[in-house]
C-alpha cells in the first residue's frame, strides 16, 4: 500500500491498477515505495515538493506497453503524468501538476530507431537524451549536428514537446519535429503527417500529410503520449564562427536588440540569440556571496563588479554563424562592420573548419553547465522562469526590463535576465533563482512570479511555457473572448479523454479541483 493514492479512486482499485501495470511492464517497471517515489520529487521544488508528489511510477519499454497501460488507466480511472525523461528542471521536472498522479516514465523507451545521413533526420523514442543522441552521432561518425538546450540532461523529444530551445539554426526544437507516433487516451495509435500511410516512405521528410496537421495538438498538452518522433538534424557545415558580444551599459539593450533582431529576421544570424545580464554569467561561474552577501536584491554596484572582474558587459550575446566558408566570412564582416564602431573594439571571431576539434565549433554539445546557476544562493537551489513573449522591439524590451528589474529589487530578489531573440519575438526571460529551503524566499518567489505573470498579461504579454505549480495561472491569462481557447482545449480533452487520465491540468487543460 502506498502512502499516496490518486484522487477519486479507492485504495483497493489503485492496488488492482498497480497489479495490472505490473502484469504489463514487469515488476521492476512499477515503483511505489516511498524511497522510489522520492527520487521523482522535483529537485527544484519551491519547498519540499510534496504537494506534487506522485502515487507511483510505471515505466514501459515499448509503444505496445504504453497502449496497454492506457487501457488499464481508463478501466481504473488512474491519472497518468507522462514524462519523457523527467528532467524538465525549472518547470516541475518529473512531478505531476496534480497531486497523486502515476508518473508514466518513458525513460526506458530510449531507442534511436533510425538516422538518415543523407536526408539529415532521425527517428527516436522519448527516452533518448541529448547525450545519447550526441554519442550515437559521434560513435557512428555521422556528420549531422543537433541543437542542445541549456540543460541537456533531458529528452530530445520531451524538450521539443514543451517548446524548449537551443542556440543553433535548429534551436526552435518544436520546429524540427517531423512526424510523430502518438498513443491516444483510449489506447489507439496514430501516426501524424506522412506516417499516417502504412508503409510511408516520407514520414520524416514532410511535416503536414493530408488534411489537418495534428502535430501541434500534442505539444504542451495532454491529448496523447508521443512514443516516437522524427527530428531534423543539421548537416555539418563547412565553417562556423562564434563570438560573445559584450554591451557595457544597461541602456545598450535598446539599440543592440534592434540590431540583433534585424539580423535574425534577415537570417544573417540563423539562431535564437541569448541576451544575458551579469547575474546570468556570474551564477554559472560563482556564488552570490562572492559578490554580495547582504539582504535584499543584489545592488547594481555588485553587477558592475561582475562586469569588471568577469570581463563581460551589462548585456552579453553569443553569436554563431554557420555555412560555407565564403558565406560565414562575409557574415563575419557584416557583423564587425555593424558592431565594432558601436562597441569600440575589434571583434575576433573564433573560426572552426571541418576537421578542427568539435569544441572550437558553434555546434551544440550537450552540457549540464547551466544547472550550476541554482547554487547561486547556496543550499538546495532551484529556478523558475518568467518568460513573456514580446515583439522584438528594442525600446519595448528595454523599458520592460527596467520595470521588471525594479520589481525584483522591490521584493528583494536578484535580477537575472536571459532574453531570447527569436525570428519575430523576444522572450523577455527573467530567471528567478532561489534557495528552496528558505521558506521566506520561497513565499517571495511565489508572489513575485504571480505578480509578473499578471502584470505582463495586462500589457498583452503571455508566457511561452508553464511550471506545474502555475499552469492555471498562465492559462488564465489567455483570456480572449472569456477564455475561448481554454474552452476549446477542454472540449477536445473531454472528447478524446473522457476519463481525464492523461495529465489532468497540464497547461490548464482538464484541471480538476482538489
Amino acid at each position: 500500500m502506498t502512502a499516496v493514492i490518486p484522487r477519486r479512486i479507492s485504495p483497493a482499485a489503485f492496488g488492482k491498477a498497480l497489479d495490472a501495470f505490473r502484469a504489463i511492464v514487469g515488476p521492476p517497471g512499477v515503483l511505489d515505495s516511498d524511497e522510489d517515489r522520492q527520487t521523482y520529487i522535483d529537485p527544484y521544488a519551491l519547498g519540499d515538493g510534496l504537494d506534487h508528489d506522485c502515487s507511483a511510477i510505471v515505466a514501459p519499454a515499448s509503444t505496445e506497453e504504453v497502449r496497454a497501460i492506457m487501457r488499464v488507466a481508463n478501466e481504473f480511472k488512474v491519472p497518468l503524468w507522462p514524462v519523457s525523461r523527467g528532467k524538465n528542471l525549472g518547470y516541475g521536472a518529473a512531478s505531476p501538476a496534480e497531486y497523486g498522479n502515476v508518473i508514466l516514465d518513458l525513460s526506458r523507451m530510449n531507442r534511436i530507431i533510425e538516422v538518415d545521413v543523407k536526408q539529415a533526420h532521425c527517428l527516436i523514442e522519448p527516452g533518448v537524451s541529448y547525450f545519447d543522441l550526441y554519442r550515437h552521432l559521434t560513435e557512428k561518425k555521422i556528420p549531422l549536428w543537433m541543437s542542445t538546450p541549456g540543460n541537456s540532461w533531458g529528452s530530445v523529444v520531451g524538450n521539443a514537446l514543451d517548446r524548449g530551445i537551443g542556440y543553433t539554426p535548429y534551436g526552435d526544437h518544436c520546429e524540427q519535429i517531423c512526424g510523430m507516433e502518438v498513443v491516444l487516451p483510449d489506447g489507439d495509435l496514430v501516426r501524424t503527417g506522412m506516417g499516417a500511410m502504412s508503409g510511408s516512405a516520407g514520414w520524416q521528410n514532410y511535416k503536414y500529410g493530408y488534411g489537418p496537421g495534428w502535430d501541434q495538438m500534442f505539444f504542451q498538452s495532454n491529448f496523447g503520449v508521443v512514443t516516437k518522433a522524427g527530428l531534423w538534424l543539421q548537416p555539418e557545415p563547412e565553417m562556423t564562427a562564434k563570438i560573445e558580444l559584450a554591451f557595457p551599459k544597461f541602456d545598450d539593450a535598446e539599440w543592440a536588440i534592434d540590431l540583433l533582431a534585424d539580423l535574425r529576421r534577415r537570417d544573417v544570424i540563423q539562431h535564437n540569440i541569448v541576451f544575458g545580464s551579469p547575474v546570468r554569467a556570474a551564477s554559472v561561474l560563482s556564488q552570490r556571496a562572492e559578490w554580495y552577501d547582504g539582504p535584499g536584491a543584489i545592488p547594481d554596484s555588485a553587477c558592475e563588479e561582475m562586469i569588471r572582474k568577469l570581463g563581460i558587459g551589462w548585456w552579453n550575446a553569443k553569436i554563431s554563424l554557420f555555412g560555407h566558408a565564403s558565406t560565414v566570412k562575409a557574415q563575419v564582416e557584416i557583423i564587425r562592420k555593424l558592431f565594432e564602431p558601436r562597441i569600440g573594439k575589434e571583434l575576433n571571431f573564433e573560426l572552426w573548419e571541418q576537421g578542427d576539434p568539435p569544441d572550437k565549433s558553434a555546434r551544440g554539445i550537450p552540457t549540464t553547465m547551466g544547472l550550476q546557476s541554482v547554487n547561486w544562493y547556496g543550499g538546495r537551489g532551484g529556478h523558475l522562469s518568467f518568460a513573456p513573449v514580446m515583439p522584438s522591439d528594442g525600446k519595448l524590451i528595454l523599458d520592460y526590463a527596467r520595470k521588471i528589474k525594479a520589481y525584483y529589487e522591490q521584493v528583494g530578489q536578484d535580477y537575472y535576465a536571459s532574453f531570447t531573440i527569436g525570428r519575430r519575438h523576444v522572450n523577455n526571460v527573467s530567471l528567478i533563482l532561489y534557495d528552496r529551503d528558505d521558506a521566506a524566499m520561497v513565499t517571495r518567489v511565489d508572489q513575485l512570479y504571480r505578480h509578473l505573470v499578471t502584470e505582463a498579461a495586462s500589457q498583452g504579454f503571455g508566457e511561452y511555457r508553464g511550471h506545474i505549480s502555475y499552469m492555471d495561472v498562465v492559462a488564465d491569462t489567455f483570456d480572449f473572448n472569456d477564455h475561448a481557447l481554454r474552452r476549446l482545449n477542454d472540449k477536445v480533452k473531454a472528447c478524446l479523454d473522457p476519463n481525464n487520465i492523461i495529465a489532468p491540468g497540464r497547461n490548464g487543460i482538464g484541471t480538476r479541483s482538489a
Partner: protein
Amino acid sequence: MSASGGVKCRPSRLLAAGLLLATMAGCSEGAQHAPAKAQGAAMMPQSQVVMFGAGSADEGERLYGQECAYCHAGRNTGTIMLGRRMDPAQAELHKRTDLEPDYVKAVVRNGLVNMPPLSRVEVTDEDLDKIAAWLARNGPK
C-alpha cells in the same frame, strides 16, 4: 595567483570561473582574466566529457560515462560544486580516492544538496552496483 587584474577575489572559488570565461567569452577581453592555474589537472573538453568511457572494457567506467560524467567529469556542474568544498584536484568524481560503494549508492538514490536523486528506472540497481564499484576502485580498502 588569481589573474583578475589586481581585483581582489577568492582564488579557490574563482579559479573555475576564470577558466570557464576563457571559453565562454569569445571576445578577447575575457582572456585577460583567465587564471594562471587550472582547477586540478587540465580539464577535458566537453566533446570528450560527453564520450567519457565510451568503448571502455570496464562496464562500470562505461556506465559512469553514460550516467554521471555529464556533471562529474570536466568543467561541469558537479565538478564545480564539489570543487567549492573539497580538494579541486579530486573534484571530478572519477579522480576521488575516498569513495566507498555504499556511499556512492546512497548519494545517487537520495541526492545530495544540489544533486538530484536518480531513480531505479534511470539507473538500475545492477548498473549502480557497477558504477559504485568502479568509482570506489581507488578508495579505502
